[in-house]
């Protein structure tokens, strides 16, 4: 595909374009042909219940999973056909904050944040040290350079992970369940941090979460994933008033209906879940 064809395939003005994306683990397909766009500077929240495929979608968007078919256009490159060298170059322009922080336990917080800079930038040690302090200050962890990750609380680890994700000044930040496992006050602090970073640096953010309060606070637009398909895609106001049954069920916290009869129960047990719930 020529560069001009590539530019045409990615929607003009989109930071990320996903087209008919399918991802499978072995025989089991997780994402069943989904398409959406993320505009520059916006925060897209990917909502969905457990097992809906939202983490798989995020992992595929950062190149940790290979799509079985479809396209993910990011920075003018299709992640489905990208070469390893191009993927490495692309990854230097994105940052990812993992659900469990994924800080390197054998390194201090400062070493964690400085790692991408030491590996990829020509900056000298004293400049990197200043940048590390700056990044930690931006996430409210000034003075924690020499702490080990094990000495930090859950919220502080998340902040340190965000500082590391931001160390290369990425254009796009990905967050996997940023407030999972945190108490409401600490979770609110993380939401505030994401809003602050977006306001200060105009970053494009993609956030995977199932925390509704957090999603409506930080999101500009939302998509709701359900069993590997997008059931709703719109602004947070549109999602809020949507009458789509799965959206209402998710927003109104309505549990899954009881299985009606023995046959449905048996179908569920043998894995024919879709038929069972009809």
């Amino acid at each position, binding site marked *: 595909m020529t560069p001009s064809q590539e530019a045409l395939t990615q929607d003009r003005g989109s930071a990320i374009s996903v087209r008919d994306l399918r991802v499978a683990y072995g025989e089991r397909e997780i994402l069943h042909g989904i398409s959406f766009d993320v505009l520059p500077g916006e925060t897209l929240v990917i909502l969905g219940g457990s097992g809906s495929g939202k983490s798989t979608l995020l992992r595929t968007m950062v190149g940790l999973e290979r799509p079985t078919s479809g396209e993910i256009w990011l920075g003018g490159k299709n992640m489905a056909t990208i070469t390893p060298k191009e993927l490495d170059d692309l990854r230097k322009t*994105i940052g990812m904050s993992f659900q469990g922080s*994924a800080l*390197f336990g054998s390194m201090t917080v400062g070493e964690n944040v400085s790692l991408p800079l030491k590996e*990829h930038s020509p900056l000298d040690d004293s400049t990197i040290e200043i940048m590390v302090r700056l990044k930690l200050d931006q996430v409210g962890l000034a003075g924690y350079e020499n702490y080990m990750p094990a000495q930090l609380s859950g919220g502080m680890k998340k902040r340190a992970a965000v500082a*590391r994700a931001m160390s290369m000044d990425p254009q796009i930040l990905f967050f996997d369940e940023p407030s999972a496992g945190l108490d409401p006050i600490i979770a609110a602090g993380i939401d505030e941090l994401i809003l602050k970073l977006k306001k200060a640096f105009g970053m494009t953010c993609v956030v995977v979460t199932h925390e509704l309060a957090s999603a409506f606070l930080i999101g500009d637009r939302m998509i709701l994933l359900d069993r590997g398909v997008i059931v709703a895609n719109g602004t947070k106001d549109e999602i809020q008033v949507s009458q789509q049954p799965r959206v209402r069920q998710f927003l109104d916290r309505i549990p899954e209906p009881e299985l009606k009869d023995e046959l449905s129960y048996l179908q569920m047990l043998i894995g024919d879940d879709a038929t069972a719930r009809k």
Partner: protein
Amino acid sequence: MAITDAVGRLAIDNFAYVGSLARLTFRAAVAVVTGPRQGAGLRYRRALHQAMAVGVEAIPIISLITFFVGVILALQSAHELKRFGAMEFVPNAVALSLTRELGPLMTAIIVIGRSGSAFAAEIGTMKVSEEIDALETMALDPVSFLVAPKLVAMLIMMPCLTMWSDFMGIAGGAVFGILGAGFTITSYFRATLDSLLKEDIITGLIKAFMFGMVITAVGCQEGLMTGLGSEQVGRSTTTAVVKSIFVVILVDLGFTALFYFTSPS
């Protein structure tokens, strides 16, 4: 047919596993030689840190074990040699057994227990806690970042530890030689040096080098293959130890046979 199918499948799986070890070692070796200059200082420091953990910190336990192995070898040799009135050959038996076989093998088994298992546990834990994924999203190759420093450390430290094991084993043999076989310190070590050829030490060191490669490859490969959940880390660690010992013995057999059949005498 079912048996032949199972045997065939087992053979294919094992060849595939050996292939994966070779591929990992090759990628790590390439990363050592052609790795980017950027961040090289960090990787050297990691290699040095690994060398301390693999080599220097193992010296006390290796010294103790190989010293006792030396005493045991001397006692066992003396038991037979005494019957033929050939006690003066105790230093020869101890020195040859240690330098050609038991020095490298005992060192490898101790290093598997200390470091091969640690490699699998460290990388397995990193896999479970998404740290390997984090490396990849930062455009850092886990093989270059994690495996290459371990390989460098192991390839340098295994021969060094083996030489130390040889020395401590011979010292152990000397204790029996002096106390139970009528040698003096000088006569025991002179007899040892007279019995040893350059090839005896070199073949032992070649084995140690290969064992180091195997221990790193199996430990790191098992770590990288760890599934989800902390239970899997324990499983990877156990598997790494068992497979490392098995592969080390196989490599030992191969090299011993090679040295035997290619030896000029």
